[in-house]
């Protein structure tokens, strides 16, 4: 998965400590002090500790964690709304932390755009002016900004609302404006901090679908923050799980589901519908051997639920797994059923312990 040549954003050994003397607190943290101890003994909040993430161009990197785990802090380091205590942030091969104010403004105007949990639209500007805002900030003419704003408003389904003010729109529509505003800046990187968390579940699903649809076409590098595992699994190409400011696991979402390396993650994934989330390619046997006793063909990217429905619950069947018209593996229903049981329950050692 990781392609060294295609890394858009790279975070290296990033630390963030909130407090009066972060540098001193950092030495304690490096010496192994944890978040609660640091707060108790030194009165500093450990925001982030030793974060290393590579974000691939054209992928959606989802950062997931419970509230207070440091997600917002992390994403705000990318465009330096928050300054780190230590570490490096490399965007397109350049160290963002070395930027002066002018270059930083240029980065924020041209390379990165942001979508906010509470929309953060300008209440005194119309929807159209909001959508074209990034262009106006860059000094482009009002006409050019409006043209671009109009285009993206139409793209997110808000044609006809140009002259409305943001608070005349529903939450979902406001966030569509937020997305149009980010897209109209034509930046390669989009930062989305819990962009859909404030929306009703049905609207949220719509917005996730909209984002995936846009992404298929635009191939932006998206950093998406969420506290919702279903959302994370739906959107993520690369999933980073954050706890108390540290990364507990990162990788392909399917991999994390099948091999969680931490009880925190096991708790997180305990309640999800694995049959709907896991995909055939994650549980198949990779082979081009035609196999015997084949009951039919399945697509590598379809989820297990569909296969179960197809098999009508018969665990003795085998399927040929196809991708782009080629066989890529064999799916044994027995493996599929095993994958449906969370690791925790299937591991006898853990079952004894708990």
């Amino acid at each position: 998965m990781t392609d060294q040549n295609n890394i858009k954003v790279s975070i290296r050994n990033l630390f963030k400590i909130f407090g009066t003397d972060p540098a001193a607190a950092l030495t304690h943290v490096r010496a192994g002090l944890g978040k609660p101890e640091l707060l108790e003994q030194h009165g500093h909040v450990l925001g982030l500790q030793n974060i290393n993430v590579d974000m691939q161009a054209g992928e959606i990197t989802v950062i997931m964690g419970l509230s207070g785990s440091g997600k917002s802090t992390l994403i705000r380091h990318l465009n330096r709304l928050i300054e780190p205590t230590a570490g490096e942030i490399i965007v397109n091969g350049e160290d963002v932390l070395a930027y002066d104010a002018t270059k930083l403004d240029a980065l924020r105007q041209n390379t990165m755009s942001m979508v906010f949990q509470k929309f953060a639209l300008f209440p005194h500007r119309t929807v159209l002016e909001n959508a074209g805002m990034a262009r106006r900030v860059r000094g482009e003419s009002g006409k050019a900004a409006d043209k671009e704003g109009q285009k993206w408003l139409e793209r997110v389904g808000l044609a006809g609302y140009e002259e409305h003010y943001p608070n005349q729109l529903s939450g979902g529509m406001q966030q569509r404006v937020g997305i149009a505003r980010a897209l109209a800046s034509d930046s390669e990187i989009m930062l989305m901090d819990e962009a859909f968390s404030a929306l009703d579940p049905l609207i949220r699903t719509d917005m996730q679908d909209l984002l995936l649809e846009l992404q298929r076409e635009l191939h932006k590098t998206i950093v998406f923050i969420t506290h919702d595992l279903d959302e994370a699994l739906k959107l993520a190409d690369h999933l980073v799980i954050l706890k108390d400011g540290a990364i507990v696991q990162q990788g392909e979402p399917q991999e994390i589901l099948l091999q969680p390396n931490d009880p925190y993650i096991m708790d997180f994934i305990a309640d999800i519908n694995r049959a709907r989330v896991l995909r055939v390619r994650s549980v198949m046997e990779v082979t081009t051997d035609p196999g015997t006793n084949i009951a039919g063909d399945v697509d590598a990217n379809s989820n297990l639920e569909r296969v179960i429905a197809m098999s009508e619950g018969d665990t003795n069947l085998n399927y040929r797994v196809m991708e782009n018209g080629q066989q890529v593996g064999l799916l044994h229903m027995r493996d599929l059923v095993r994958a449906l049981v969370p690791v925790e329950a299937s591991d006898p050692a853990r079952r004894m312990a708990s």
Partner: protein
Amino acid sequence: MAFYDGLIETLGLTDWCGEADAGGGGPLTMAELLARANGGGADGEDPATPLMDTPFPSLDTLHQSCEAIPRTRDVTEMVEQGFLGIKDGLRLVLDPLTEPLGWLLDASLSGFEATPWFIMIPLLMALTWFAARSVSVLALVTFSFLFMAMINHYDEAIQTLSIIFVCTIFCVVLGVPIGIAMSKSNTLQRISIPILDMLQTLPTFVYLIPLIFLFSVTESKLYGIAIILYAIVPVIRLTDLGIRLVDKDVIEAADAFGMSNWQKLTGVQIPLALPNIMAGINQTIMMSLAMVVIASLVSAPGLGRLVLRGINNLELGVGLVAGFCIVLLAVLLDRATKAALGRINSSEQ
């Protein structure tokens, strides 16, 4: 001899105090005069003062026992001398700085007075309509001015209005930037708030005293400064508050899209603080009106002068009618600015 003699002696301060000869040289204090008028000379034998009559150890009382302690009148004298001492220096700085205010006040006054009523009243109506877009406010303004013209108070009302006009402009031009600076710096805010509190709570007469010494009473900038000092407070406060109250998320969005500080200030913070700033301007106008009446004491022309005449000459009718005109002016200024404020608020929703 005096009540605290014993105390001075016990403390061993007799030498430092010098000869205690109250009633000797120097002007007499009021207490000494009273004592003398009551028959008992200051030098006479004091009967032992009963405990219940123990005088407060004030400067004057202590002075009776100890020459070296100054009397209160010496202290006020010192304050006066101190002020007179820095007066020339202060004048040298303040005079050129405040000169434009005087010019503008005079120019505006003669401008307002030179404009004939049949131009002025429609002009005011147009202005009201432009700001407030409200028929009832327009009607109020029209009838008020026609009424004041009818009872021959038009000239005074226009003079008062002219002063308020100039002073409000100064308050806004100075107050909004000060408010913005305060919203940007917590230190500046901590320093400014006590000063603003003081300006707002000082009785208005107290302002006038140092100003009278600094400038001559005939100068229009004297009352101009008094009005501005008093009326500038709300516009500063509410600009500061308004900018600080702008939604943090919106500011963060402005930062995230790379807005410069100037773009942020003019494009986001001031527009979003505008309802608060306008509320401050409304209060500033009302306070200017209150002060312009008092400033008639220091030669400010206008309706206040008629009120003053009413007080001085016990002309009840003159004072009351002028007072009524002031109320009318206050109501219409308030309604017009509130309506303008309401329009801003609703356009932002």
